[in-house]
């Protein structure tokens, strides 16, 4: 009659584990480490899926660029030109009643207008008479009043420019264009 071989150390350990953890361990015999193991192939698959998501997001922005461009065209009277002397400023709302905007009469005689929302975090910018620049009080962003370009602080993009047209003595806003 054959003698039954004594159980190995691993088998003894598992028998003890089975008594402790019950039947599920026998039906799901994966080691804890193996349960969380990610193979290189799985990592590559995950990376390709992430790459696809990034591509889809970029394609979505490109599609948005054509479907819903950030140009807003609507004609609106701002103010009579004589009401804003050279070096003066006039605050108004454009293109909607919730959007602040600034009309500037530059010392060289030109009229320029910009969106009043800072391109950093959309705080309202104002014209500083001393420096002649446009300032954002939230994070001390500074914009050049002649071009709308950021010259100091956290903003990286220029203020959107508002295209103007002058008919008679009246100044009209025609279109807001990001720049």
């Amino acid at each position, binding site marked *: 009659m054959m003698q039954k071989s004594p159980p190995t150390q691993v088998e003894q350990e598992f028998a003890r*584990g089975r008594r402790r953890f019950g039947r599920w361990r026998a039906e799901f015999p994966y*080691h804890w480490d193996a349960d969380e193991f990610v193979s290189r192939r799985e990592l590559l698959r995950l990376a390709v899926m992430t790459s696809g998501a990034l591509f889809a997001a970029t394609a979505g922005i490109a599609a948005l660029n054509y479907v819903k461009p950030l140009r807003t065209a609507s004609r609106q009277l701002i103010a009579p030109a004589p009401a804003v002397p050279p070096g003066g400023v006039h605050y108004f709302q454009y293109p909607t009643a919730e959007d602040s905007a600034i009309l500037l009469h530059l010392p060289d005689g030109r009229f320029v207008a910009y969106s009043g929302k800072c391109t950093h975090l959309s705080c309202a910018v104002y014209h500083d008479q001393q420096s002649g620049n446009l300032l954002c009080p939230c994070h001390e962003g500074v914009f050049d009043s002649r071009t709308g370009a950021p010259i100091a602080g956290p903003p990286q993009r220029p203020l959107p420019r508002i295209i103007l047209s002058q008919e008679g003595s009246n100044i009209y806003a025609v279109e807001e264009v990001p720049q």
Partner: protein
Amino acid sequence: MSMGNGYYFHGESTADVERTPPPGRVAIVLTGLAIGILLMGIQLWLLTVALDLYLSGGGPSVLVLTLISGLIFLGGLFVLRLLGRHPHLR
């Protein structure tokens, strides 16, 4: 699984399922992974540039960025498919 003598085997361990590349190819595999992660970083950068361009009024360059991002994605798909056909290349 049953061992036939009333005892159950302990199950898989990390060593059982982990297959290391052949000697001398570890550097190649790691380089490939590093390049893949770098390309994903470039894709993320392209996404932020595209968003910045969109907020600045857009233009045709957004399409170019999308094209480059798509090429990187297609490259990843190609490598995944290549490895699917040749399972020994891991």
